[in-house]
């Protein structure tokens, strides 16, 4: 009995597999890509289009359907002129809103500062990991461990450090005159805390990518330079730096994309009101004011800003590569 059902099951499975065997390479390829593209379509492509379509509708806070009539690009105009009704502004050209309370600038400032700091620190870490010394494996584990830490725990560590009751960091920062009395509810102070927390976690990622670039450099170049009497600084400046610029730009591209979507770290430390990043603004607009259409407009603008940055990097990359050859 059971062997019979097994056999019919096997035959049921064999039929599509045999059918698949007789298809051409191209059809076979498209079929195997089916699951991946189905997943991407449901989660990414289709929602992106939907986000754009929602963003052209009015906010209907009180009705059952949160999307009102078609209003065109009105939300975008409001967002870009600082007149949106959301709890925080996206961009206020009159600068009556403090600059770090504007989602666009808060996010850009965070992305630029964190990527620059992480590149510098990651470079230092990569230069260390590039050496041969005893215990290198353990030093490498120690340096990459922060990268594998859940965002909520990273946030927790820095939340505790800067909380006025248990933390020591607030007192220290106050004594050197940088922080006010309650940093986790002050925009500038919280921005710095979030920045430090992000640098602590993600420098390791830059370090790993830069290390891969360093190790692809031909060691003989250094030998030649040594023989001709170049100091370590000269070797770094004239060999390492030019050869690493390509991989470095790629690494910075990835980090920038990642930094632009900062949300969790802010949400679990200072809160989205204190440091409104673009992703933060999407969530507060959605959850707290029920302005779903405005939230969609912010979300789509976020995607646009990131696409522009990607294009800028790609142009830079093309230049750096054509400069080499």
């Amino acid at each position, binding site marked *: 009995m059971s062997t019979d059902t097994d056999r019919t099951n096997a035959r049921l499975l064999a039929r599509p*597999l*045999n059918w*698949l*065997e007789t298809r051409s390479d191209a059809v076979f*390829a*498209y079929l*195997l*890509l089916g*699951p*991946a593209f189905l997943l991407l379509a*449901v*989660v*990414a492509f289709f*929602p992106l289009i939907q*986000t754009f379509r929602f963003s052209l509708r009015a906010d209907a806070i009180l009705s059952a359907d949160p999307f009102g009539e078609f209003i065109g690009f009105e939300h975008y105009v409001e967002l870009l002129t600082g007149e949106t009704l959301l709890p925080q502004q996206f961009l206020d050209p009159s600068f009556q809103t403090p600059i770090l309370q504007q989602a666009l600038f808060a996010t850009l400032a965070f992305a630029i500062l964190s990527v620059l700091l992480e590149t510098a620190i990651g470079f230092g*870490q990569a230069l260390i990991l590039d050496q041969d010394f005893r215990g290198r494996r353990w*030093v490498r*584990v*120690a340096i*990459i*461990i*922060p990268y*594998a*830490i*859940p*965002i*909520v*725990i990273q946030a*927790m*560590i820095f939340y*505790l450090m800067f*909380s006025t*009751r*248990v933390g*020591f960091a607030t007192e220290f920062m106050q004594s050197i005159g940088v922080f006010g009395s309650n940093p986790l509810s002050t925009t500038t102070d919280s921005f710095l805390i979030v920045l430090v927390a992000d640098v*602590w976690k993600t420098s390791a990622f830059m370090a*790993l*990518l830069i290390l*891969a*670039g360093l190790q692809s450099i031909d060691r003989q170049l250094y030998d030649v330079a040594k023989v001709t009497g170049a100091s*370590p600084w000269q070797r770094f400046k004239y060999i390492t730096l030019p050869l690493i610029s390509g*991989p470095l730009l*790629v*690494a910075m591209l*990835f980090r920038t*994309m990642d930094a632009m*979507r900062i*949300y*969790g770290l802010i*949400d*679990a430390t200072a809160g989205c009101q204190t440091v409104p990043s673009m*992703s933060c603004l999407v*969530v507060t607009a*959605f959850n707290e004011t029920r302005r779903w259409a405005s939230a*969609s407009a912010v*979300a789509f603008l*976020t*995607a646009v800003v*990131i696409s522009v940055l*990607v294009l800028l990097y790609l142009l830079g990359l093309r230049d750096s590569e054509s400069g080499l050859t």
Partner: protein
Amino acid sequence: MSDSEHPDLAAQEQMDEEPELDRGVVEAWAARMISNPDRAYKSAFYVATIFFLVTTLFPFYWLLMVALTPSNDLNQVGVLTPGGFNPGVFVDVFLEYGVPFQRFLFNSFLIAVVSTVLVLFVASLAGYVFGRLQFRGKNVMLLAVLVVSFFPPAAFFVPLNRLFNTNFDVLRPLMADGSLYNTPYAIIIPVSALYLPLSIFILMTFYSQIPDGLEDAARVEGTTRIGALFRVIAPLSAPGVATAGVLTFITVYNEYFFSSLMTSGAAKDWGPMLEGILAFRGQYEVLFNVMGAASIIAVLPVAILVIVAQDKIVSGLTQGGLKE
């Protein structure tokens, strides 16, 4: 260092031995550094190494200090010392305070494991196609996959949230109200899609390196193309599959955006670990030491994974990252 063995340099070093001068420690040290720059570079190297080790590891050490401090002595926590000694907190996390932390941990594990399996399967199929087959539109499709990893999850959030809150009659036998909100799938589906591209790129590289002859041999023996993928190519690329698996598990376990937004946050509604940790930040009292202990417990699985699989993580990140 090979330079110091060089005869000329050795001679130079001897010449540089200065006549005895009455110098302070710092001055003497500076003089030595100037006369022998290699030594200066070497000590700079050690100083930098120690600096990075301290900055990366200190926050964990201090978290442990907070966790070990009893609740009443929390303002006694020092920079290097705890304000008391209360290791019992690591048990109390699970038993006291009314937060079912073990359930939150279980939810996170289940979500991470299911997503990893799903991603590995789907990325295997796609990686095989991109790595080993030639067909029209390949580059466009590869680009489409890459583009997804550029967009922020917030750009997909509003429609996805609406979709997952819609009741589907088809799902009624599986879910109580027929919607995906408050089920593990509401996190598994978006997170799997977001981390799919990385695994596709890793597996694509590994699968493309398997010689055609091995696949042909398997085909001659009578397996189907799919059979050859899962019986020959995937097992031979075991390091690549392990790399993709470890990275996917870690990133899903660490994910915040969808994990915090796609459930109500209650343990019975499949809220993941992060909700558990934040739950100790109550309305009237913040249990700092318990949060510390919970964080340490939740970090252990990934920390162990990093120590065991550091080579895989390093190779996977660099490959996935440097693919243009």
